[in-house]
């Protein structure tokens, strides 16, 4: 059992939790993730480690409601428990193992989209802790969905916030900001780290490729075990098939086949619709409504 010490709603549909998991907090590094499972009947849900406290033995996660399981998770309160909480999984971000002096000479750009701000945050914080100032772009659909702004401002060198609908700071996509920084403000970057919805990462990569900036992305395909046992998380990187849970989740964004990955992520859409229906309507849902194929 893994106790939830703090549960907080950050924005519309976005939640933050601190979970007691000393084993994970002890050795985890930026870039890695955990798998949580609410109870006996729950799914295994992968979530990036957003922050950790080695002394207190806690892990911070931030998640967005997208389907039945995340909806169920959002109902949990401080004091409740996750039956299972596994990690750290996946590989650490590359820079953790790089030469610090070389890293300090680089100009690094972080790009976060939506709930992607959560996985970007520990990396930016790591940079700050190691004396490196980085530029950070955070994009969100609208003002109410923007998360971790204060935390990010404290950790970043420069922070650029943008909203799709213009409800806060500026209007536009993260890609517009990248273009603006490089083409109008004369910024040069040696590398870019982009994390967010796959579609965002795809367009960031198209742009950084054009601008010649090497780019790392963090892939979030559907997973089951997270240990390399099932292959559900496989994706094509260059001409190789990789398992995101053990080979990643971070990859060279210019080599990732995003179109394939996005199709694979949609695989359970109809099934997930079913699960939501069941959750909403409880025992009154017996299928046959024509929307979900009923109970097969």
């Amino acid at each position, binding site marked *: 059992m893994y106790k939830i010490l703090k549960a907080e709603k950050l924005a519309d549909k976005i939640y933050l939790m601190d979970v007691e998991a000393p*084993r*994970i907090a*002890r*050795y985890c590094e930026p870039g890695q993730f955990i798998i949580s*499972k609410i109870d006996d*009947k*729950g*799914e*295994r849900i992968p979530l990036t480690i957003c922050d950790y406290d080695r002394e207190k033995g806690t892990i911070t996660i931030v998640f967005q409601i997208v389907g*039945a*399981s995340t909806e*169920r998770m959002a109902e949990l309160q401080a004091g409740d428990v996750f*039956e*299972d*909480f*596994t*990690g*750290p*999984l996946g590989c650490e971000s590359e820079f953790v193992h790089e030469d610090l002096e070389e890293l300090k000479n680089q100009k690094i750009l972080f790009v976060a989209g939506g709930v992607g701000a959560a996985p970007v945050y520990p990396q930016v914080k790591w940079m700050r802790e190691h004396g490196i100032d980085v530029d950070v772009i955070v994009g969100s659909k609208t003002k109410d969905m923007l998360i971790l702004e204060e935390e990010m401002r404290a950790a970043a060198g420069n922070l650029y916030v943008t909203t799709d609908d213009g409800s806060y700071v500026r209007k536009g996509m993260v890609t517009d900001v990248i273009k603006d920084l490089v083409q109008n403000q004369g910024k040069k970057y040696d590398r870019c780290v982009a994390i967010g919805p796959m579609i965002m990462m795809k367009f960031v990569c198209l742009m950084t490729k054009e601008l010649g900036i090497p780019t790392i992305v963090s892939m979030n395909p559907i997973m*089951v*075990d997270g*240990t*390399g*046992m*099932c*292959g*559900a998380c*496989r*994706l*094509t990187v260059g001409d190789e*098939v990789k398992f995101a849970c*053990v080979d990643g989740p971070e990859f060279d964004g210019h080599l990732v086949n995003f179109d*394939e990955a996005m*199709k*694979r992520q*949609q*695989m*359970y859409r109809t*099934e*997930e619709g*079913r*699960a939501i229906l*069941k959750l909403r309507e409880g025992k009154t849902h017996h299928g046959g409504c024509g929307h979900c194929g009923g*109970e*097969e």
Partner: protein
Amino acid sequence: MDMMKKVPVREQDPKVRATNFDEVCLGYNMEEAQAEASRCLKCKNAQCVKGCPVAIHIPDFIKQVQEGNVEEAAKIIGLSSALPAICGRVCPQESQCEGKCIRGIKGEPVSIGKLERFVADWARENHVDPAQAGEPNGKKVAVIGSGPAGLTCAGDLAKMGYDVTIFEALHEPGGVLMYGIPEFRLPKEDVVLPEIENVKKLGVKLECNVVIGKSITVDQLLSDEGFDAVFIGSGAGLPKFMGIPGENANGVFSANEYLTRNNLMKAFRDDYDTPIVAGKKVAVVGGGNVAMDAARTALRLGAETHIVYRRSESELPARVEEVHHAKEEGIIFNLLTNPKEILVDDNGWVKGMVCVEMELGEPDASGRRRPVEKPDSEFTMDVDTVIMSLGTSPNPLISSTTEGLEINKWKCIVAEESNGQTTKEGVYAGGDAVTGAATVILAMEAGKAGAKGIDDYLSNK
């Protein structure tokens, strides 16, 4: 009764069982078991024992069954095997104990597996406590993985008095017994979980959700957590794919994923959250036990199911009993057929599989005739789901994070067969992690050998 024939075992009707996940084989009752036991010749030089990898005293336990002393029979089996209810169900008996049975020369061999299962089930139902923990000796051993190798090793060490902790990566113990082999062949609640409970009753601690190599390394277990020795029983879980075009389409799964969703995550039950794409027309590529399990699972989820295998029936590596069961249930076998490409629709889903017909040529290194493509024999199978069951290899998570642990070219951990000793001091290994995908009974035997190896090492240290 006909002494040449096995007492038939009751099974669920094929038509009925094709729609449920309940156990196919219902097992013997007392009367049937005694009748079957009477067929055993109680040979002095019992060949059956030589066929059993753990050398169960077969004629002795069968004699006890015949006389109605099932508790006594259970004790005899318990001397050699820790998981008889499981092995009685899933051992490839036709090539092991029963394959060597003297009765089998003229007639059918004695149903040793079914008798073993009968005894083990009886003992469980009648709460015969199989073993006791030993006097604590104050030494700590970590066991990685809770499959048959890890469970056996942990149980044996606890009986010798060691303080044992099992670390399991998944949220439930049991390894392939839980996530791979389906409910209809090996019931989880009734058979697997009680066996795990027995190990826990010996005082073995079980920590799930710990991925060794990620959560903590083998070296850290030895240096930071005070373990005196480590046994690695992490299995061979990494699935292989063919590398043909279209393999990443939606609707292509590894057998491991398909079976895990269904067995471990219980996707077949409405009250569990994890989904599964059951498919309407499913092709399972491969011919082993794993392929049969995946195919029979797909069938039970309502799909028309095909086994696609590139050699002929006699080369099918699956157990004869499983092939027979699969056929009875209505699985269609497309033998001498090899996939070339998976066709994908605009949304990224499987819409068919291009195959080519094969014929058997000259024998290859394995002694089996090598399948070769028939020219101009390409055709398209109309399927919407493909399950790849091409075998698995050991996961490199542990070997790549452990200083001085040698592996061979198949990524298997190098270890002595007799005691599980690896190339690293204090670290032992056994089961599929060492041999590559094999069998439950061999993993169990390796767990036993490892326990003995660790005991020798720590006693002399």
